[in-house]
């Protein structure tokens, strides 16, 4: 009797819409605030070792594991400076506009066929449209700072994000054509026999390169090129607002690595014969591996010049992506 009452009580709580919403929001926020810390720490250490250094070694005693937490505490303590000539409201809103899309993106990322927040029918369409919003945040930051470096950086970022949005979407489109669905879970389930990275290796490379450019990560970091325009659109930012931009960058790495693993690496699916490891760990491992590649590329390649950067997109990636779509369409119709 008591057990039955308990079960019904729990069921009643579980069916409470607001409670579930609150729990899901908390889960997404906690994941979004911790996973980028892991990537940030990995970047510190991997980059250091690739340059034959040690990286942070003191924070938290053991190999500087608490470095990112210490950085966060430092950012909180800093003075929040708004330039006198700045457009105060736009200046303050910009970090949020840059950050929120990446948080929202995790709503549709599945960690197994049960663990997900929302299975949108238009999942990948939602992802593509919401990542384009970040560029507005960067533009707002650059415009409102009343600083020439910020403006140059913001315009470079806008030009770059527009140029690389296209190959990103085209690559995703050919995945959608092969999977026959827009839903993220549907795309993962469609990879039951083989990863789409095997059938569309060119698309995979296009997607990775375009993602790097979307995140303005090296070698596509022209918009924040410190040796010429200080830190681009973020030059005037300090304290927490600056930390939010950094969080958006590392959150963006996690987000786009997650999208890439859903589209090309079979998402939460295990490698054949390794089904014992639970699906969320597979997803985490794939995100980690792709994040490592992002850091690896940063350590290896010098920055592309602005015109080269545009050329790579318009003359290489977009034509390749279009050919990819045609090939997928022909195969789809013929087979």
């Amino acid at each position, binding site marked *: 009797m008591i057990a039955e009452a308990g079960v019904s009580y729990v069921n009643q709580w579980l069916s409470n819409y607001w409670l579930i919403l609150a729990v899901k929001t908390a889960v997404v926020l906690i994941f979004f605030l911790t996973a980028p810390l892991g990537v940030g720490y990995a970047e510190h250490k991997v980059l250091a*070792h690739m340059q034959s250094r040690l990286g942070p070694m003191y924070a938290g005693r053991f190999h500087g594991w608490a470095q990112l937490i210490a950085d966060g505490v430092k950012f909180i303590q800093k003075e929040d400076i708004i330039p006198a000539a700045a457009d105060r409201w736009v200046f303050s809103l910009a970090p949020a506009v840059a950050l929120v899309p990446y948080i929202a993106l995790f709503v549709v990322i599945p960690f197994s066929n049960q663990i997900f927040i929302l299975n949108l029918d238009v999942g990948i369409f939602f992802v593509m449209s919401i990542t384009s919003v970040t560029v507005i945040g960067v533009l707002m930051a650059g415009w409102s700072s009343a600083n020439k470096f910020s403006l140059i950086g913001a315009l470079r970022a806008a030009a770059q994000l527009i140029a690389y949005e296209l190959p990103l979407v085209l690559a995703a489109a050919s995945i959608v054509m092969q999977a026959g669905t827009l839903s993220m879970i549907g795309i993962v389930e469609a990879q039951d026999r083989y990863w789409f990275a095997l059938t569309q290796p060119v698309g995979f490379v296009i997607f990775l390169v375009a993602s790097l450019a979307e995140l303005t990560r090296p070698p596509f970091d022209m918009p924040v090129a410190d040796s010429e325009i200080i830190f681009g659109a973020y030059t005037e930012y300090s304290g927490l607002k600056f930390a939010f931009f950094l969080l958006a960058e590392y959150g963006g790495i996690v987000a786009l690595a997650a999208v890439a693993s859903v589209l090309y690496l079979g998402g939460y699916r295990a490698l054949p014969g390794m089904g014992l490891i639970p699906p969320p760990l597979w997803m985490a491992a794939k995100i980690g591996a792709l994040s490592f590649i992002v850091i690896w590329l940063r350590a290896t390649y010098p920055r592309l010049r602005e015109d080269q950067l545009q050329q790579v997109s318009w003359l290489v990636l977009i034509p390749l992506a279009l050919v990819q779509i045609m090939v997928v369409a022909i195969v789809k119709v013929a087979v």
Partner: protein
Amino acid sequence: MAVDEQDVRQSPEDATPSGLGLLKGLAVTMKAMLHPSITQQYPEEMPDLPPRSRGVIALKQENCTVCYKCSRDCPDWCIYIDAHKETHPPASGGKARSAKILDRFAIDYALCMYCGICVEVCPFDALFWSPSFDYAEYEIDLLTHEKERLEEWTYTVLPPPLIEEGAVPAADDALAEPA
């Protein structure tokens, strides 16, 4: 020659478009990551410095004849020398013997620029380089090391490195060889 210059400055058309260089670059960074880093974690780990490191200048008072060569040649006047003359009466007639007694020998390391000219000009091997470097102070006065402290540094002086095999010894080294 013009041909050589052309060879050095490869035009973009000549560059091989294979993209092999991109992969080579990735291999280089991966190799660097898998090898242990070369960082020495000072102060937990003291660096292993070569004998000729210019850390601090040590004074062997015994060898100093108060010739003032070091203090005169010092470009930034950071060597202080005070001395007086003592005459010892002869034991068995004749002229009294005089000796120079070193009262003060100090090097102000706040001024020193570690050029090593003093070590170079010292004719009697009283000054030496030591690789010790950890003598930072909170007060600038304390950077002036008096002769007692300079004497202590002599215990940190390393023996000179061996001459490379097959190398011709320096001219004054040959003179110092016992016959």
